[in-house]
C-alpha cells in the first residue's frame, strides 16, 4: 500500500544515527519537563523552540527533537500526578484521581508501570491513526479554497473557545487579543505598516516565539513567586519497591486501554480539544462503563490506565488536523505549529505532497520515540522521580534564564527580550483572570493567514460575501464551528474537569 511505502521512506529518514540520538535526547528531556511541576508540554517545548532554532538544525532533525520532547512530556506528566498528587501538566490532571490513591496504597511502582504502558498503547495506536487518517484529510483539504480556509480557522477558534474553555466570553477576548497582535507589522498584501506606532522593530510583526515564551514560561515564574514556599512539592517519599505491572493488572485493563485510546484519539482529532479533553472524556466514559463496584477514585488501576491512554492518544490525534490542515487544535499543537513555522515549513495539504520527507520522517520519529519512551520509562523511572525533588526555588530561575537565552539567540535584540517580559506580565494577569492564553497564541500564529484568506476569497468573488458560505464544504465547516462554540452550553459539564487555571499549560 501507498501509505506503507511512504512510511518506510519516513523510517529511512528517521533512522540515521543523528536523528536517533536526537530522539533519545528529546524523549529524555521531555520526560523530565513533563515530570516537573510547573513545566508542561506547551511551555517546555516553547522554551526549547528558540534553542533548537538557533542551533541551526535542519528541519527534519529539529522536528524530531522537538516532537520527542512533546511526546516525552506527555509521558512525564503522570509521574508527579501519581507520586505527589500534583499534575505535572494539565492533561495529567485526571491521572491524580486514581494514581495517587494507588501510590498511597503502596502500589506506586505498579501505577507508574501501568500508566507508562497505557501511555504507550494510547500513543502507539494513535500514531497509526495519524498514518491512515491524515492522508484522507489531505485529499479533502486539497479541495479547499480561501473561503474554506477562512471558515476552518474560525472553526479552530470556535471550538477552542467553546469546548476547551470555561468562559466563552473570555475565550473570545483572548482570541481577539491574539488576532490583534498578529495584525502588527507590514500588511502582506498592500505593504502598508499597521499598528507599528512608527517603531521600526514592529515592522516585521511580533515574533510568536517571543509571545509564547513570555506567556507560558515567564508568567509561570511570576505565578511561582506569588506562592513562594507554599506550593513547592516537599518530598516524593513513596518507596518504589518495583516498577513493573503484574500481568493480571494488564489483562484487567486491556479493554480500558483499547476503549480509551479510541475515545482519546477522536477527542484529539477535534480541533480545539486536545489532550486534556481526551483524558477527561476517557476517564468519565470508562467510569460509566466499568465502575460497577464504585472503586474508581480509590486507586483502581483502570482509572489510571484510562486517562493515560486517552491523553496520549489525543496527543497523537491532535497532530492530524495540525499536519493535514495546518490548523492546530490545542495549546501543545499550537506550539508545534509555531515550531514548524519557525523552521519555515507551512503545514497543510501541500506539505504532504511537497515535503513528504518531513511528514513521514516525523511520523516515523513518533513511532521510534514511543518505543524509546517505553524503554526509558520503565527502568529509569527512579531517576525521574529524583528529578521531582529539585525544588522550584532553583528550578524556576534556571527556566527563566533558559527562556532569555533562547529568545536572545534568535535576534540578539534587547527589544525582543523586553517584549518577552511584557508578555510574561500580561500572561500573569490574564491567567489570574482565568483568561486562556492558548487562543492568544493561536491568534498570533494564524491571524495573518486568516485575514489573507478572507481577503482573497472576497477578491475572487468581487466582494460578494456569499462566497464565505457558498459551498457545501464551507456550510459544513460553519455548522461545526457553531456547534463547537455552543456545545458547552448544552453539555458543558460532561466535557471538562474543574481545573485550576494555574496548572501549567
Amino acid at each position, binding site marked *: 500500500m501507498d501509505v506503507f511505502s511512504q512510511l518506510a521512506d519516513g523510517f529511512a529518514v528517521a533512522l540515521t544515527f543523528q536523528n536517533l540520538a536526537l530522539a533519545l535526547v528529546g524523549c529524555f528531556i521531555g520526560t523530565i519537563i513533563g515530570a516537573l511541576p510547573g513545566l508542561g508540554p506547551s511551555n517546555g517545548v516553547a522554551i526549547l523552540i528558540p534553542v533548537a532554532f*538557533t*542551533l541551526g538544525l535542519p528541519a527534519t532533525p529539529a522536528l524530531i527533537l522537538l516532537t520527542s520532547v512533546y511526546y516525552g512530556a506527555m509521558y512525564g506528566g503522570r509521574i508527579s500526578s501519581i507520586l505527589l498528587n500534583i499534575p505535572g501538566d494539565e492533561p495529567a490532571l485526571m491521572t491524580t484521581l486514581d494514581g495517587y490513591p494507588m501510590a498511597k496504597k503502596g502500589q506506586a511502582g505498579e501505577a507508574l508501570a501501568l500508566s507508562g504502558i497505557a501511555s504507550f498503547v494510547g500513543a502507539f495506536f494513535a500514531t497509526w491513526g495519524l498514518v491512515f487518517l491524515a492522508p484522507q484529510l489531505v485529499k479533502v483539504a486539497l479541495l479547499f479554497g480561501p473561503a474554506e480556509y477562512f471558515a476552518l480557522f474560525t472553526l479552530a477558534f470556535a471550538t477552542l473557545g467553546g469546548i476547551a474553555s470555561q*468562559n*466563552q*466570553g*473570555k475565550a*473570545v*477576548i483572548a482570541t*481577539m*487579543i491574539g*488576532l*490583534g497582535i498578529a*495584525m502588527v507589522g507590514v*500588511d502582506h*498584501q*498592500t*505593504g*502598508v*505598516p*499597521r*499598528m507599528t506606532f512608527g517603531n521600526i522593530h514592529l515592522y516585521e510583526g511580533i515574533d510568536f516565539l517571543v509571545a509564547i515564551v513570555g506567556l507560558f514560561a515567564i508568567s509561570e*515564574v*511570576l505565578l*511561582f*513567586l*506569588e506562592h*513562594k*514556599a507554599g506550593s*513547592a512539592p516537599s518530598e516524593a517519599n513513596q518507596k518504589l519497591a518495583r516498577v513493573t505491572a503484574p500481568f493480571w493488572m494488564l489483562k484487567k485493563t486491556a479493554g480500558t486501554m483499547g476503549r480509551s485510546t479510541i475515545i482519546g484519539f477522536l477527542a484529539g482529532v477535534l480541533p480545539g480539544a486536545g489532550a486534556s479533553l481526551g483524558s477527561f472524556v476517557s476517564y468519565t466514559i470508562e467510569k460509566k462503563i466499568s465502575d460497577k463496584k464504585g472503586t474508581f477514585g480509590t486507586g483502581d488501576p483502570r482509572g489510571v490506565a484510562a486517562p493515560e491512554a486517552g491523553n496520549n492518544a489525543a496527543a497523537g490525534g491532535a497532530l492530524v488536523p495540525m499536519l493535514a490542515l495546518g490548523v492546530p487544535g490545542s495549546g501543545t499543537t499550537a506550539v508545534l505549529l509555531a515550531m514548524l513555522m519557525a523552521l519555515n515549513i507551512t503545514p497543510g495539504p501541500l506539505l504532504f505532497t511537497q515535503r513528504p520527507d518531513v511528514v513521514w520522517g516525523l511520523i516515523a520519529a513518533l513511532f521510534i520515540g514511543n518505543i524509546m519512551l517505553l524503554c526509558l520509562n520503565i527502568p529509569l523511572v527512579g531517576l525521574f522521580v529524583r528529578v521531582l525533588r529539585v525544588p*522550584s*526555588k*532553583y528550578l*524556576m*530561575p*534556571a527556566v*527563566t*534564564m*533558559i527562556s*532569555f*537565552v533562547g529568545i*536572545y*539567540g534568535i535576534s*540578539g535584540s*534587547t527589544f525582543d*527580550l*523586553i517584549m518577552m*517580559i511584557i508578555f*510574561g506580565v500580561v500572561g*500573569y494577569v490574564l491567567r*489570574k*483572570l*482565568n*483568561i486562556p492564553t492558548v487562543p492568544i497564541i493561536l491568534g498570533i500564529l494564524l491571524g495573518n493567514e486568516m*485575514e489573507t484568506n*478572507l*481577503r482573497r476569497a*472576497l*477578491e475572487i468573488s*468581487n*466582494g460578494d460575501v456569499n462566497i464565505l458560505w457558498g459551498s457545501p464544504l464551507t456550510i459544513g465547516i460553519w455548522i461545526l464551528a457553531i456547534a463547537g462554540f455552543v456545545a458547552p452550553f448544552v453539555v458543558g459539564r460532561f466535557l471538562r474537569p474543574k481545573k485550576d487555571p494555574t496548572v501549567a499549560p
Partner: protein
Amino acid sequence: MSDRVLGVACLLLSAFYIFMATQIQTSFITDYLGPKFFPILIASLLAIAAIFPIIKPDPDPDWPGIGRFVEIIFAVAVMVAYTYALPVVGFVLSTAITSGILSWRLGAKPIAAAIAGVSISVGIYVVFHLVLQLSLARGPWGF
C-alpha cells in the same frame, strides 16, 4: 470586580484599536477589503465579547497581598535590568546575579542562592555556548 475592570479595559482597548486602524495609510495597491477591515472587525468582536465579563463577572481571583505584589514587580524589574545589563557586562556575570536574586526571592537562603546563581549561569554557558555553540551575550571580557 476584577472582571468588570477587565471588560472596561477591553472596551477601551478596542476603541483605541479601531482608532489606530482608521489611521492606517492606504497605498496605491488595493484589494477589495483593504488593510483596515480585518483589524476593525477584530476590535469590534473584542468590544462585544468585553460586555460579557461586565454583565456577568466571575468571582474575583485571589490577588496576591501587597507584599507578594511588590515581590512580583521586583522580579520584573530585575528581569528588565538583566536585559539591559546583558550587552554591557556579558552573559555569565549578569546571569549569575539575576538567577541568584530570583532564587533568593523564591525562598533560597542567600548563600545557597548565590551558589545556585553561579551554577545556573556557568551551567548554561557550558551547555549552550561551549557544547551547543549558541551565541550568548558577550561582555567586555568575551563571556
